[in-house]
C-alpha cells in the first residue's frame, strides 16, 4: 500500500429509460505520490466519468456499482458525504475544461479562492484574502492585488484557467485532477498553462491525474498513461513505452491518425467507423467492429488486459499470440 490513489475494477452506470447503462467498466489504475498519470481517449470513452467517479461528483442518475477507489487507504466509494466533503477541495482538487463556466460569475475572484481556505483550513476572511493574493501571484497573474476584487468576466480564458488552478492549489492538495485543462485554450496559452502545471507539480510534489484527448499533451506531461476506449481501459503503461511500442490496434490507429508537423504524409491513416453506442456494445472486444486484425475470437470473447512488457498491458488477443510465438 504505497500508492496514493488505487482505483480497482470500478463500474459506473447511469440510469436511463433503458435501465442502468454502464459508462465505464472494470477500470483500474494506480497513482503514486508526485506522479502524473494521463487518461487519454476520444469523446464518450469514459475518461471524464472516471475522474468524476474518483471525485464522487457524479450526477444524480450516476452510480458506482462495483469496485473501490482507495485514496490513502480510505475507500471513497463507501465514505459518507460529510467525510468526502472534507477530502474534496482539500486533499483532492479538480480543474475543469471550461474555465468560463466553472467559475461563479457573480462572486469576486478573491472570494472564490477564499472559500475553500476558510472551509478547510479554518482561516479568517482577512487571512484567506492575503493567502488568495499569494496564490494568484504564484500562478503568474499580474496585478494580483487588484484582480482579487474583480469578477471572472474581466479575465481572458487563459487567466481564468490560472484562477482555477489557484483555487485548486489553495489547500495544497495531494492529488490534482485536471479534466481537459487546456482544451478550450489556444496553443500559445496552452503552452503557458502546461508550463505552470509542471512548475507547481515540482514545487508541491503533487500527483496529477490528467484527462485529455490530446496525445501531444500526454507525451509532454505524463509519466504513465491509460488509454480508454468505449468505457474500458485498452492499454496502459509508461509514456515512453506506449509511444515507442503502441500495442493495441486502437492506440496504434489513434497515433497514426494525427497529422505530423515534422513530416509530410500523402494520406492520413484513419480508423474506419464510429465508437459503438452504450446500448449496442459488442459482446466480444469493443474495438472489434473497427479493428483491422479482427478474428472470430475477438467477436466471441472479450480479451482481458494482457501483458506486453513489464508495466505495459493491452486488452487485445494479439498479445497472447505473440507470447505463444516467442
Amino acid at each position, binding site marked *: 500500500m504505497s500508492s496514493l490513489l488505487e482505483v480497482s475494477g470500478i463500474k459506473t452506470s447511469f440510469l436511463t429509460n433503458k435501465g442502468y447503462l454502464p459508462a465505464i467498466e472494470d477500470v483500474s489504475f494506480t497513482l503514486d505520490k508526485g506522479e502524473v498519470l494521463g487518461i487519454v481517449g476520444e469523446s464518450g470513452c469514459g475518461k471524464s466519468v472516471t475522474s468524476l467517479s474518483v471525485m464522487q461528483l457524479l450526477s444524480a442518475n450516476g452510480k458506482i456499482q462495483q469496485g473501490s477507489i482507495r485514496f490513502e487507504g480510505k475507500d471513497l466509494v463507501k465514505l459518507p458525504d460529510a467525510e468526502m466533503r472534507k477530502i474534496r477541495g482539500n486533499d483532492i482538487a479538480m480543474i475543469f475544461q471550461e474555465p468560463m463556466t466553472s467559475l461563479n460569475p457573480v462572486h469576486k475572484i478573491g472570494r472564490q479562492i477564499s472559500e475553500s481556505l476558510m472551509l478547510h483550513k479554518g482561516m479568517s476572511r482577512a487571512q484567506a484574502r492575503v493567502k488568495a493574493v499569494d496564490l494568484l501571484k504564484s500562478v503568474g497573474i499580474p496585478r494580483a492585488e487588484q484582480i482579487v476584487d474583480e469578477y471572472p468576466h474581466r479575465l481572458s480564458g487563459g487567466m481564468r484557467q490560472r484562477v482555477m488552478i489557484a483555487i485548486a492549489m489553495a489547500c495544497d492538495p495531494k492529488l490534482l485532477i485536471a479534466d481537459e485543462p487546456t482544451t478550450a485554450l489556444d496553443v500559445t496559452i496552452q503552452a503557458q498553462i*502546461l508550463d505552470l502545471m509542471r512548475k507547481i507539480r515540482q514545487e508541491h510534489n503533487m500527483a496529477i491525474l490528467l484527462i485529455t484527448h490530446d496525445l501531444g499533451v500526454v507525451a509532454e506531461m505524463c509519466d504513465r498513461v491509460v488509454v480508454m476506449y468505449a468505457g474500458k481501459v485498452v492499454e496502459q503503461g509508461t509514456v515512453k513505452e506506449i509511444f*515507442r511500442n503502441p500495442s493495441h490496434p486502437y492506440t496504434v490507429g489513434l497515433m497514426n*491518425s494525427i497529422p505530423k*508537423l515534422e513530416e509530410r504524409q500523402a494520406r492520413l491513416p484513419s480508423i474506419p467507423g464510429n465508437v459503438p453506442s452504450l446500448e449496442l456494445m459488442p459482446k466480444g472486444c469493443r474495438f472489434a467492429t473497427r479493428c483491422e486484425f479482427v478474428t472470430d475470437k475477438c467477436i466471441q470473447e472479450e480479451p482481458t488486459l494482457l501483458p506486453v512488457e513489464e508495466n505495459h498491458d493491452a486488452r487485445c488477443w494479439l498479445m497472447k499470440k505473440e507470447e505463444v510465438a516467442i
Partner: protein
Amino acid sequence: MTDALLSVNDLKMHFPIRKGILRRTVGYVRAVDGVSFDVKAGETFGLVGESGCGKTTTGRSILRLIEPSGGQVFFNGKNVTKLSGTEMRKIRSEMQIVFQDPYGSLNPRYTVQQTLEEPMIIHNLYADASERKKRVMELLEVVGLSTSRMNRYPHEFSGGQRQRIGIARALAVNPKLIIADEPVSALDVSVQSQVLNLLDDLQKEFHLTYVFIAHDLSVVKHISNRVGVMYLGKMVELAESDRLYEKPMHPYTQALLSAVPIPNPEAKRERIILQGDLPSPANPPSGCYFHPRCQSCMDICKTTAPEWKEIEPGHFAACHLYN
C-alpha cells in the same frame, strides 16, 4: 496575378462599437485589417491563427456573408464586393462554405434529403424532383454516407457524419471554391482523419479549390499547399506549407509552431513560451501589433508597423527583423 481563382486585396472588416443612448460609434473592432492573398485554382490555401485573429471573419467576408468594410475580393476576375444581390446569389453557387459546428449548421427539422435539395432549388439547378433526388443520392455516395439514410434527421447522425452532410451540401451546387471554416475542429482525431481524407479525395475528383481555416497547425500543414498566418486581424506570414514549417520567419509563427505539443515523449526541443494574452482588436498596440509579446522586439517595432514584403521567393512576412 492572372492564374488566381480568388484574389483578396486589402480586405478590411471593422465592426463599429456603439455606446450610449444614441448608439454613437465610439470606435471600431478591427477584426480584419488589410489582408491580401491569392488562391490559385486547384490549390488549398490554409489560414491559421489563434481565436480572435480574424480568420473566420476573413472567410465570411470573402463570401459577403458579412459585408466587408473595405478592400476587394476578385473571384474568377470578377470583383465580388461590387456585385448586386442577384448577381451575388448567382456567384455563390461557385463559392460555398463548410462550417465548423456540424451540430449547429444543419437545420434540425430538415431531413438529409431536404438539406441537400435546398441549394439546388435556390439555384434552380434541376428540372424536377426525381432528378434532384438522383443528385442527392449521388452526393451521399460521394461523401461516404449510405443512401438509405437520406430521410433521416441530423440528430440521428454522429458528428463526423454530420460534417459529411455539411460537405455534401456545399458540393450540391458544383462549386469551384469551398471555404472550409474549422471543418474538423469539433471532431475526434480518428474521425478527423476520415474527414481530412475525404476533403482530399473530393479535391482531386472535382478539381476544387479550398480556403482551409483552422487553428490546428498540424492539420493545416497536412492539407494545405500554402499557408497564411494571421495575428490580430493582419497577415503576418505567408509561405508554402513545408517551407513555413521548416523555416518560419516571423517570431509569432516561430512561437506558435514551438507551442504545439508533439506526440513523442522523447522529442526534445526549444520551446518559446509567449507571455501575456492576445491584445484586444478594438485597441491594438502601436507599431507592430505583436511587439508587446515578441522576443525580438526592437525600438522601431513599437512605433512603426512593419511592411508586408516578399523576403524570399514566395515567402512573405511582415516583420522589421527582415528589413
